[in-house]
């Protein structure tokens, strides 16, 4: 009998009369309200930082769609971020395209780039895929610098772009406007990701992650879906890159090194592999923790960062999302046993 109760609780923990998903919905609405209000109460600089957090969160979510949902591994997402950023910068600077219109273009280009990269990646697994994507990340700054493309990319100099003003004479600062703009993009992309995961396609992707052979046996076109996962993942990261270019007002090869890809990976793991809200936590982590570490010790900032990272993994081996699930499960058990 005891066993049956255990299983029932794990399936649907209830706290204070609400199920876990209900709590999640409530929390989502709450976060959204806070998100809408924040820029009105904090300094422009903080608004700018929070905008970057959201941008990183979108990029991390992109990586998460690949790794968390489809089980493929990438150390090369800085490349897609760069493609997105450069697409926007080139369109704005060389062709005078309005910034908002550059986002879909950046997304589509990255979708294609990701899909194409996903094709050869099909033959590679685990470490080998890691190496191939690692190679992509390392090669990206070199390709951006290449004198052949200098006419468009600005070569080693990069491209400086103009920060957009709020439209319709809205009484907002540039930073506040970009914050809301990014927030809107984020909400759309997060909602789309949630739908994707629970759709047929999402189930197919997860089936491939959990058991590729069985998925194949079930008639899932694994090659197509895996490439598609790469494409969609790249799309997300590319849109993030495009937003990043607009907010930073500058793109240069040095902005998209391998360390950026590593940061995305760290953000994903810290936030929780496979978790959508975890991406926000991951974004905040890679944005603020290095600054925090720098405050602790200038000379040893990265050592401090490393120690914090290790501690985080010790406390939450499956990331913030896993940690929350665990705590929620515990709370649910305590609550139900007291009832």
């Amino acid at each position, binding site marked *: 009998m*005891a*066993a049956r109760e*255990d299983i029932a609780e794990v399936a649907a923990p209830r706290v204070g009369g609400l199920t876990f998903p209900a709590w999640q919905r409530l929390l989502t609405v709450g976060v959204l309200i806070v998100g809408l209000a924040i820029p009105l109460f904090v300094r422009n600089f903080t608004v700018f930082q929070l905008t970057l957090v959201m941008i990183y969160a979108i990029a991390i979510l992109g990586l998460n769609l690949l790794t968390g949902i489809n089980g493929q591994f990438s150390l090369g997402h800085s490349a897609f971020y760069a493609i997105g950023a450069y697409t926007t910068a080139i369109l704005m600077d060389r062709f005078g395209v309005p910034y908002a219109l550059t986002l879909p273009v950046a997304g589509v280009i990255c979708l294609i780039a990701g899909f194409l990269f996903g094709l050869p990646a099909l033959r590679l697994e685990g470490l080998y895929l890691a190496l191939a994507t690692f190679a992509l990340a390392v090669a990206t700054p070199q390709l951006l610098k290449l004198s052949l493309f200098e006419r468009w990319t600005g070569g080693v100099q990069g491209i400086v772009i103009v920060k957009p003003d709020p439209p319709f004479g809205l009484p907002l600062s540039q930073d506040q406007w970009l914050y809301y703009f990014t927030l809107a993009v984020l909400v759309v992309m997060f909602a789309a990701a949630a739908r994707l995961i629970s759709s047929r396609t999402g189930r197919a992707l997860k089936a491939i992650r959990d058991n590729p052979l069985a998925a194949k046996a079930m008639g899932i076109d694994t090659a197509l879906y895996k490439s598609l996962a790469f494409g969609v993942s790249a799309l997300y990261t590319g849109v993030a890159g495009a937003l990043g270019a607009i907010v930073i007002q500058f793109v240069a090869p040095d902005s998209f090194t391998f360390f950026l890809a590593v940061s995305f990976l760290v953000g994903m793991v810290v936030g929780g592999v496979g978790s959508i809200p975890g991406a926000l936590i991951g974004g905040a982590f890679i944005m603020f923790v290095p600054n925090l570490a720098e405050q602790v010790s200038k000379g040893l900032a990265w050592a401090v960062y490393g120690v914090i990272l290790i501690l985080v993994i010790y406390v939450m081996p499956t990331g913030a999302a896993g940690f929350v699930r665990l705590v929620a499960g515990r709370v649910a058990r305590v609550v139900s046993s007291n009832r």
Partner: protein
Amino acid sequence: MSAHLAVRGLRAYYGQTRALHGLDLDLAEGGITALLGANGAGKTTVLRAICGMIRSEGEILLDGKAIGGIAVEDVVRLGVAHVPEGRGTFVRLTVEENLGLGAMIRRDRAEVARDIERVYAHFPLLKERRRQQAGTLSGGEQQMLAVGRALMLRPRVMLLDEPSFGLAPRMVAEVFEILKAVNRSDRVSVLLVEQNATLALAFADRAYLIETGRIVMSGSTAEIGADENVRRAYLGY
């Protein structure tokens, strides 16, 4: 006959989920005991719990000494050999390396060499393939290798998980013959998990019947084999 291995109130867990709900078991010294039950009843879990591969509560006594909660490798070092489900061969290593690994904890080199020859005597096929990667062996050959590797430990207790799985009937008889011989000559106590109840009842001298993580019947193989329910449910006649 004293109990060589005794289990009292064993509860075992996979993560948060409990799979065994307090079960008692005695393994007679030098005896062969069979553990019967349907798929998913928890037979394999019992073996895994005994040698510390999963988290468990309750008492596990080897020669009267508690071995619950100690690491797998230490249980093995006390002379408990486990031939796991799916055989657990080292597929990238050669047959001979696999056998050598079975005797990893022994220091008596000369004896080990002699034991390898003894295994080859039991399973001449293995001798032919001694330099091959174990992964290239057929399922039956790998099963022989797994049994041979367990014997290399010179175990005092053997835990066998479905040794008949994937073997041709002729081979099954052969493997069980060898196991019986070793059981007699070395006085090894054997705990056998088998789906094939007929086979198990013929081979063992005592048996336990397990259902959803609990022992529901125990006794000599003759008693169990004679039970009406067992015959209908497990022996199929």
